[in-house]
């Protein structure tokens, strides 16, 4: 649905986006992750034909960037970082205005559809400025959908929203996915990206990693199994280290942490080995690395290339080993 090849943008001497090459598949939610100034907004502005790339090329919904930008603009919906509503105009007038600008055929019907969908039909005569932040954001997303675009760009859709409003917006994004739209999401909220995105691109000017969140976690950290023991002895640790498929063993309190690639197949072997070594296992769980762990690692430059495997025999500290992030087996 979206393809970029060496997409680059400079502002004077500042390199905002450096040779970005990626593909976004139809119907997926694709996340752009990166720190402030990483070039996320610049990238989606280029892809929405708002600003021109310095070099490189891109195709969005079959439209070549820079060749037919007006047609491209009809193919994309764009939610800016702030809702950008006309506060003095009614909710209905806000949507109707953009429906006219997008040459929507049945303006009244389309506006009515979205206002009813948002539960705002009864408040259609109220000024947009009177809406709550969450509703304003939903209205802004609806505005981006009026012309039924196959591709939707959402720039920080839940930033500055309270948890309840953010939840509303995330549910709304979920509904868009069910409609089969391709959604490109720029966000700082890594938990949100983890929950919503099929794939994420982590970048800082240039692409650092691109994959499904779970796959990135696996590639960067492997999968970590936690054994809670009644009593931890050195031989228990040695029992696990004896297996070649165990790439790392760490101990924290009475817990053993083993990094493996395929816990479903390898856990029974490890459990048997620990029992034979005299360990009394109270509980077995999996330590969930979050997308934030992946992101921070990439940002610190600990892994430079995309699709980097976890370092074998890693002796990293137990990353914030909170029991809340363990998944029981």
């Amino acid at each position, binding site marked *: 649905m979206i393809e970029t090849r060496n997409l680059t943008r400079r*502002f004077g001497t500042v390199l905002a986006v450096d040779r970005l090459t990626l593909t976004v598949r139809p119907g997926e939610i694709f996340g752009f992750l990166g720190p402030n100034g990483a070039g996320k907004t610049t990238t989606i*502005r280029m892809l*929405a*034909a*708002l*600003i*021109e790339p310095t070099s490189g090329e891109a195709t969005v919904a079959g439209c070549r960037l820079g060749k037919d930008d*007006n*047609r491209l*603009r*009809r193919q*994309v919906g*764009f*939610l*800016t970082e*702030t809702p*950008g*509503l*006309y*506060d*003095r*105009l009614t909710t209905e*007038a806000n949507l109707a*205005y*953009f429906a*006219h*600008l*997008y*040459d929507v055929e049945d303006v009244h019907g389309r506006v009515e559809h979205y206002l009813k969908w948002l539960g705002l039909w009864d408040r259609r005569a109220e000024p947009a400025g009177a809406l709550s932040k969450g509703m304003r954001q939903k209205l*802004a997303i609806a*505005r*981006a959908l009026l012309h039924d675009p196959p591709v939707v760009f959402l720039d920080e859709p839940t930033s500055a929203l309270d948890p309840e409003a953010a939840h509303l917006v995330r549910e709304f994004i979920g509904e868009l996915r069910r409609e089969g739209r391709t959604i490109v999401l720029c966000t700082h909220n890594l938990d949100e990206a983890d929950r919503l995105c099929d794939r994420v691109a982590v970048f800082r000017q240039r692409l650092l990693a691109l994959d499904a969140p779970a796959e990135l976690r696996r590639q960067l950290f492997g999968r970590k199994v936690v054994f809670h023991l009644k009593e931890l002895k050195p031989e228990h640790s040695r029992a696990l280290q004896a297996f070649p498929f165990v790439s790392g063993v760490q101990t924290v309190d009475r817990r053993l942490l083993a990094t493996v690639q395929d816990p479903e197949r390898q856990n029974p072997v490890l459990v048997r080995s620990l029992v034979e070594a005299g360990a009394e296992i109270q509980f077995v769980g999996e330590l969930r690395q979050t997308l934030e762990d992946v992101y921070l690692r990439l940002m610190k430059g600990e892994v430079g290339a995309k699709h980097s495997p976890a370092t074998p025999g890693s002796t990293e500290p137990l990353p914030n080993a909170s029991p809340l992030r363990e998944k029981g087996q």
Partner: protein
Amino acid sequence: MHKVWVIARKEWSEVFRNRLVLFTVALLPAILTALPLAILVGIGRQGFGDAIATGDMPESFLQVCGGLALEDCTAYFLVSQFLLLFLLMPLAIPVTIASYSIVGEKVTRTLEPLLATPVSTLQLLGGKGLAAVAPAVVVTWACFAVFNIGVRFLAPPQVAAKVADPMWLLAIFVVGPLLALAAVCVAVMVSSRTSEPRVAEQVSMLVMLPLMFVLMGQVAGLILLNTEMVAYIAIGLAVVDAGLMAFAVNLFQRESILTRWH
């Protein structure tokens, strides 16, 4: 054209809900119409001949009076000063509207979603320009009509007849809209380079300076406005407007406005 009209309609619904803009747009024409009528009422009570000394009038103005008696010519000299006040309206009103409608988009951060739509720069500026020029022209014409009616009651009939002569009609119905267009172009140019509506409005108001010079020149007798000169001004303004429009559209770089304003 459809989108130009859509944008203009939206501007009217939005801008005229802004009390500050509404106040500015309504107050200035009200004052500029009421003031000359009030002066005419005051002078009328004294009698035109007693109120104005013939010596106050530049001698060159006699050419403009044609066949008017000296006393009527003196009265007409006074009334003709008001004509330039009516040309201030099409300059001041669009500047206020355009400044708020363009820079206002930046303040409310509505410009980016707007530019993401398939709207060309020409349509966008056309809509905003129409939204600023049309009220200015309508208000000026309406105020001129009110003034005309008032003059018929308050000034000698020969003087009242001169207010509807070709020079006035050319000034109000041709020069006025051309001035409004020039004002909008200047406001667009200034708005493209500033991020605060009031700054844009104040800087754009400088467009009134040339008219003020003409006003002072006429009072001092240095400039003598007649039909021919107004016609030349109209032609000159049309040329200037064409250049200003091209320059304003060229200066309104969607990309640099977006990246600079955020």
